[in-house]
């Protein structure tokens, strides 16, 4: 049966092109792969190869023709031994089915995991645990529970962790499950993702999230996107954890808060806890979660001691904020180490007659906007506080969501507290000037309360 040779699209954007010249003549026999013509696309001159074999019966569009639409018939091919026959009867090929008109409905938000913290029975005993040990306990408990869980990273095994978070784990679980890696973040982050594809549950420790910049391609392109790209077939249950944000006088390259970076990415869960109880309960949840989790810790509070419930299996819900202090005059929304600063600021504010409510986000993605908005509806005032830069930051997202979701309840424009928009300086005085502290939160809170 005679078939049309069609004007091919040879680039993702090409709609029409110039058929520069034919390299074969009518009557020539051609086989698949032969170059039959040259076409100028919007990008380059391309050679057109024959797809089928046969005899070129008729050229419909002569060489030198401009503005030939993609999919227009340019020649007629007949099979071996076939007569050109009544070529005019050859019907034009039907155009590919038109795409339906794009719908303008915005994407609905992802369902939040909205369950409350487990109710603790009256009189539950508390134990005093450092943040460092709470994180270690969480990993140890989950490794006992599931033998697919393993820890890998720089200095996690024999050295017991650069910040001693993995102390004792090598001794208990052995070198198969507590693995010292070379200093190759890109490689071992990718290897961890591959191991998760292969059915394991890796915990990948970064000595700091500043070094995870080497590995961010795998965190985002390989871990976060693969479930979607595979139509739900592939699963990547992995935890990337380690200290995040500023330490103390370590300079610009070791001092960044990455919460807004990872918080931007669909397919990731991002957790940034403050106290030891939250850190333990959320790390256990992160290890069990079927999704890739970025778990941001803070070096400067590793040694601080907090109450942790003395219960067998302390697991907290991901995606749920916590009211760290109840108040009625202003809502301060924050996370990680800044929760401590916000609580200190709230005490100062109380002395001046301002009753602040402190919301500890705990999870950065998905954000628990329900808790934040309910608080603002009560206080009518919003301050956000974060260690990262303000531009495109967590506070920017919270302020936008509150403005959209509770505009009529706001008695003042939201205020944002964040790091000065500069790489973090090494000099003691400049570092102090750049990083936000309790005083900045107090000033911002008084500002939105119009109090002098």
């Amino acid at each position, binding site marked *: 049966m005679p078939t049309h040779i069609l004007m091919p*699209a*040879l680039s993702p954007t090409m709609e029409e092109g110039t058929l520069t010249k034919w390299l074969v003549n009518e009557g020539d026999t051609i086989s698949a792969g032969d170059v039959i013509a040259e076409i100028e696309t919007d990008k380059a001159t391309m*050679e057109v190869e024959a797809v089928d074999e046969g005899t070129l019966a008729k050229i419909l569009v002569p060489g030198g023709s401009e503005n030939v639409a993609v999919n227009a018939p340019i020649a007629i091919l007949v099979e071996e031994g076939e007569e050109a026959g009544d070529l005019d009867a050859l019907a034009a090929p039907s155009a590919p089915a038109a795409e339906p008109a794009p719908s303008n409905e915005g994407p609905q938000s992802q369902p939040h995991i909205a369950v409350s913290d487990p109710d603790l029975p009256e009189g539950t005993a508390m134990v005093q645990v450092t943040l460092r040990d709470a994180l270690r306990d969480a990993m140890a408990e989950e490794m006992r529970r599931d033998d697919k869980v393993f820890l890998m990273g720089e200095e996690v095994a024999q050295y017991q962790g650069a910040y001693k978070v993995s102390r004792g784990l090598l001794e208990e679980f052995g070198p198969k499950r507590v693995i010292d890696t070379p200093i190759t973040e890109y490689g071992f982050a990718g*290897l961890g993702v*591959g191991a998760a594809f292969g*059915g394991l549950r890796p915990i990948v420790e970064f000595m700091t999230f500043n070094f995870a910049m080497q590995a961010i391609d795998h965190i985002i392109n390989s871990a976060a996107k*693969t479930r979607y*790209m595979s139509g739900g077939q592939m699963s990547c249950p992995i935890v990337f954890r380690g200290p995040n944000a500023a330490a103390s006088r370590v300079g610009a390259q070791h001092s960044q808060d990455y919460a807004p970076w990872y918080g931007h990415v669909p*397919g990731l869960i991002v957790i940034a806890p403050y106290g030891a109880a939250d850190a333990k309960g959320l790390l256990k949840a992160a290890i069990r979660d079927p999704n890739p989790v970025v778990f941001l810790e803070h070096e400067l509070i590793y040694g601080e001691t907090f109450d942790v419930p003395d219960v067998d299996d302390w697991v907290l819900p991901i995606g749920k904020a916590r009211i760290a202090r109840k108040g009625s005059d202003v809502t301060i929304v924050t996370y990680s180490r800044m929760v401590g600063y916000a609580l200190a600021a709230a005490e100062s504010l109380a002395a001046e007659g301002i009753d602040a409510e402190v919301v500890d986000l705990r999870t950065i993605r998905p954000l628990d906007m329900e808790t934040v908005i309910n608080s603002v509806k009560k206080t009518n005032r919003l301050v956000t506080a974060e260690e990262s830069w303000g531009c495109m930051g967590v506070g920017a997202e919270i302020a936008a969501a509150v403005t959209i979701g509770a505009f009529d309840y706001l008695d003042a424009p939201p205020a944002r507290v964040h790091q000065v928009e500069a790489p973090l300086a090494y000099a003691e005085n400049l570092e102090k000037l750049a990083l936000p502290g309790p005083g900045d939160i107090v000033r911002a809170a008084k500002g939105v309360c119009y109090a002098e």
Partner: protein
Amino acid sequence: MLAYYQQMLLIRRFEEKAGQLYGMGLIAGFCHLYIGQEAVVTGMKAAIKDGDQMITGYRDHGHMLALGMDAAGVMAELTGRSGGYSRGKGGSMHMFSVEKNFYGGHGIVGAQVPLGAGLAFADKYNENGNVCLTFFGDGAANQGQVYESFNMAKLWDLPIVFVIENNQYAMGTSIERSSSETHLHRRGASFGIPGIEVDGMDVLAVRDAGLKAVKHARSGKGPMILEMKTYRYRGHSMSDPAKYRTRDEVNEMRQHHDPIDHAKARLEGEGWANEAALKGIDKAVRMIVNDAADFAQTSPLPADSELLSDILALEEI
């Protein structure tokens, strides 16, 4: 040999059809064809057993067909339809089949190398006796993460075979212009990883080298590198005019080194198959490919609700 011939022919015809559908505007975006390199994946498939995994970059259609993934499902993913392996959400470069042990389909040059090392790490951890074949090109061979992976793979003696498909051009840059050491099988030397150069246009040579490397990896001796000297006939992607090499160079490879012609001549020369049998194979392959193309055009677009599914697993923990 007849089965290898059929497999290679299926890949060739599938890719030609994909190029045709691209030309009709039915396939969009990037589309990297495997034409010319068919012997590599066909020979390597012949060297593994059920359970062994494959992972590769974005020139991935041949690997999926070799692993027995359904041609219609692959083609429908190329056209972005609901019948595709990723239900239209992945496209040419991002397809997976856990059932067939195909782990993608990755769009970032070299990213599959540590991912493959991770799959091999899981094989060793789980003591399942499987081996992971990790394919990458001569271009990816200059990525830093490849050497991070070589180091860890040998350090921990992971059951992995690194298959370098050296088609001699990293997009438009020839290997001589991009690489200080152009003998890529030597690239593992400083890690203690043995490497072999293989004629990647000869399916039997590929299979034999593959058997050796897979046996080495499975026995606990760690990784091996196979450098497959091969050639792609088409441009890097559909929109590459391939002006960086001469038409004569391409024709020389096509006429004198084609893996399918080579297999066919061997089949006929040895008297393993007659013309009628080969014609029958040709016909059967065309039918599979035409059916795949029909399915890829008639399978509906993914439902709007697919937009927000498969982002996170929502099961309770």
